[in-house]
């Protein structure tokens, strides 16, 4: 019971902190090379290199996380590109990292402006990044990534999976239409 209450109180604080600081939202960014010919890319394949360290021992070589991310990426990529095993136009890489961030705004508020918002000031922030490399020229032609709070999500498999799906869909949506 105590444990359950702590979780509830924790999530209320967490939600309040996120709502107040805006860290619940995932911010998505990307940059893209201008393609030489519009709609020149029809297919992609996964890069042969495996996942890189994430900075969090719970996610390093974690096949559940890796498969979820790859499945989500394949589902989103399928809307635009064919997946091939070899001789594809594009090579897809992914990278994920997690680290602790300090929310200065919640700290500032506890210096007298607000008595109720002593909530959580340290949270786990994550970045998921996807890269597309032109297979012929071996140059990076698009990079998309999301940044946001993953606080408490690694410890909750269902929640993490939802977050990964949401993040990957947002990233892939930034691939330019003329690619």
């Amino acid at each position, binding site marked *: 019971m105590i444990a359950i209450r*702590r979780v509830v109180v924790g999530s209320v604080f967490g939600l309040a902190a996120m709502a107040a600081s805006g860290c619940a939202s995932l911010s998505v960014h990307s940059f893209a090379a201008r393609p030489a010919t519009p709609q020149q890319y029809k297919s992609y394949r996964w890069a042969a290199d495996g996942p890189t*360290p994430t900075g969090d*021992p*719970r996610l*390093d*070589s*974690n*096949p*559940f*996380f890796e498969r979820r991310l790859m499945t989500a990426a394949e589902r989103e990529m399928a809307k635009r590109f064919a997946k091939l095993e070899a001789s594809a136009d594009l090579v897809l890489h992914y990278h994920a990292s997690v680290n*602790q961030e*300090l929310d200065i705004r919640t*700290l500032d508020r*506890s*210096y*007298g*402006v*607000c*008595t109720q918002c*002593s909530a959580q*000031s*340290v949270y786990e922030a994550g970045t998921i990044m996807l890269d597309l490399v032109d297979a012929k020229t071996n140059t990076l032609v698009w990079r998309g990534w999301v940044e946001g709070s993953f606080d408490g999500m*690694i*410890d*909750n*498999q269902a929640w993490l999976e939802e977050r990964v799906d949401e993040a990957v869909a947002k990233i892939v949506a930034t691939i330019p239409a003329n690619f």
Partner: protein
Amino acid sequence: MRTLQAVLIFAVASGGCATMSVSSHVEPGLDISRYHTYSWSAPDALPVPDPRLSENPFYKDHIEGAVEKQLATRGFSMASASPDLLVHYHAVIDRRIDVSRINREGLDCVGPDCPPEVFEYEAGTLVIDVVDAKTNRVIWRGWAQDTVEGVLNNEDRLARQIEQGVTRMFARFPRAAQGEKR
């Protein structure tokens, strides 16, 4: 005294760094009743072990003892030849930050004017992977995270922390024939 106790309990409950956090990931739709035997195997290459743990002989003993006990109570037996499952573990220690709320809730400083205190501590994460020996796929990963301040050089505390972490981790291990969804 009572106030101090209350403050300490509150600090432990809210501070985060002083409490152990335990969780796990599991393969969807896993049928654990297919597996009966296990064996220890070498951990994956990625994590770099902390020498304070990898060179501590008690650490290995305590972890393997605790895991073997948990697996035995769940009906798994150790098999050196062709086991169904391979079990490996690794522990990582890294520096983390937390914000103390003790001062603001305590007696010497009450109210919104008390500055929060940001401090750094060492957190240990013990990760245990259970692998299907035939497919070489991880079917379950459990972990426990806790502060290791004052623990690494104290065998009794290290043993208690490992015992608690492994017990709580395996409380989340899938059970056969209960149809329980995680």
